[in-house]
């Protein structure tokens, strides 16, 4: 009996680690965009799903390898974000209450994208699975784990680490944090604020795309994942503190483990329900979040 419990425990921990990495990535992307551009991206879940679906199309319909599909999706994510910034996002940079305007715009975007998905992918299939990145199983301390999941885990934490280093030490990361803290003085110190907005939007969205690809590699998914991801990312952002990347990383990991543990006992909807509850309490008691500066 104790062996079964141990296996459940190990699988819960590995699921928690993977989900935590993905949640942290997506929430970090969302919070970077919100903290810098003041754009609460309600359609982040749709971007997440878009990335996963494109990866599915590339592997299933075009027969690509998962690794090349992942790289291609990332490149497409960057191109898509630049295009979106150029067509839509830059038009509201100077609007005074632009977070609510952006919120509405991204809700509209959510409606468009979910409509398109249910007319296309929703007709083709209701469950999507990608071929694994790597085949085979590795025994870790006597417990089996698929190589695919290990790869996803390593890539996820590698990405989180490099994101952290980029924001901490690179010139762009410092400019970004300067704009986070005070737009006017950043501009006075020679930071091109508009350019930083653009870069942040592209960076944040590309990270959301990466999260989508990683999720698709680790788990099979359906179209409802978009809504769940949107709720989760917003909850993480609000609880961790809007604009705080550290908050997104910490709370994202906590949420990943919560989801993994709850899924053992109850349906994942219960986890979503609890996120909504915690976010509500947080909004009411401490809207600036746990890790706000």
């Amino acid at each position, binding site marked *: 009996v104790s062996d079964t419990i141990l296996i459940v425990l190990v699988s819960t921990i590995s699921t928690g680690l993977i989900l935590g990495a993905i949640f942290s990535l997506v929430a970090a992307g969302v919070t970077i965009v919100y903290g810098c551009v003041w754009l609460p991206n309600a359609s982040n879940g749709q971007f997440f799903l878009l990335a996963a679906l494109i990866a599915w199309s590339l592997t299933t319909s075009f027969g690509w390898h998962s690794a090349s599909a992942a790289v291609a999706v990332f490149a497409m994510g960057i191109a898509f974000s630049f295009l979106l910034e150029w067509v839509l996002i830059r038009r509201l940079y100077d609007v005074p209450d632009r977070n*609510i305007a952006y919120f509405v715009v991204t809700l509209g975007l959510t409606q468009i994208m979910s409509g398109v998905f249910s007319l296309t992918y929703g007709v083709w299939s209701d469950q999507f699975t990608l071929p694994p990145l790597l085949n085979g199983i590795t025994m870790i301390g006597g417990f089996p784990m698929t190589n695919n999941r290990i790869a996803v885990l390593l890539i996820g934490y590698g990405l989180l680490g490099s994101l952290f280093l980029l924001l901490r030490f690179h010139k762009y990361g410092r400019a970004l944090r300067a704009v986070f803290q005070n737009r006017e003085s950043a501009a006075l110190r020679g930071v091109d604020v508009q350019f930083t907005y653009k870069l942040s939007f592209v960076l944040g969205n590309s990270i959301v795309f990466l999260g989508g690809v990683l999720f698709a590699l680790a788990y099979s998914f359906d179209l409802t994942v978009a809504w769940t991801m949107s709720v989760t990312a917003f909850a993480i952002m609000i609880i961790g503190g809007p604009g705080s990347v550290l908050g997104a990383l910490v709370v994202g990991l906590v949420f990943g483990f919560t989801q993994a543990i709850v899924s053992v006992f109850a349906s994942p909807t219960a986890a979503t329900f609890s996120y909504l509850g915690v976010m509500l309490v947080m909004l009411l008691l401490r809207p600036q979040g746990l890790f706000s500066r």
Partner: protein
Amino acid sequence: MPSSTRVLIFIFLTLIALASPFLVAGNRFIAFILGMTFIGILWSSGMNLLYGFVGLMPMMFGGIAGIAAYTMVYLTQGQGWSFWLATPAAALLSASIGVVLGLPSLRLKGFYFALCSLVIQSVITLAFIYFTQFTNGDVGITQIPPPDWFFGERLNGIQFDFLLALVAVIGVVATMVISYSRLGKRLVAIREDDVLAATLGINVLGNRSIAFFIVSIYAAVGGCLYATYVGFISPRAFDVLLSLNVWLFVAFGGRGTIIGPVLGALILAPLPFLLQELQAFKDVISGILIIVVTLIMPAGIYGEFLRRKKRWMAGAARGATSDTHSAAKQ
């Protein structure tokens, strides 16, 4: 106070609205669209009170309408109440629930209020799906009869359409009265600068709560009428898309004006029925409209009209003064 021309225009429009059910009585399809438009007008006038006058975006609007609709159906079918008694009861109950749920969030502004109400809306939608003993879950409740009438009769098509027209007119008149009242003035003061309003002795939270309660009543009455008019309700009918749609009526027509939201509902509410071939693209089209309105016409069509009129009048006035100047020189 409104000018006499405005009163005349208003009376004229009211008469048209009340007469319209009889004018289209021959065609049930058109009559049905008209009825749905009246419900849309009622809803958008209500949403306008909060979005236009207080400046808050209540994304839980659809959820409140849903609570009222389910309560009304439970009271009429489960408990044998009359529709005319069940609707006010359901409206009061759901508006109270709305205020209790919304009260903490009414301290928040702008985006945070919108997000909070979106979260509440999601919780309500999940509740509709999970409390199947009241709501029948995702399947929904079918064959809800029209409101009862004297001698055990039920309202027939034209009578029901006329009822909807009447309720819509009452709804618009009520927003008008509120906007000219002291409450309306206080709400606008809060929208423009809540800190300043508070220092002037206006109870910001209290006035917002009153406005929110009134808006919830609009949502609830509309929800009850919708349930009996369509005869079918499900969690999907009262999800966040309903809130967004009603928001779009207000924003597209012109927030903060009386006629704007009515125009918005008149133009947008019939669209999904008239464009049957494009039914599958309904969400895509309304999403595109939301983006276009936000980017290009933040004041809505009526707001845009007012702006042009003002500019034109200013131009005409300037032309007139320069004429007198040149006349004086000669």
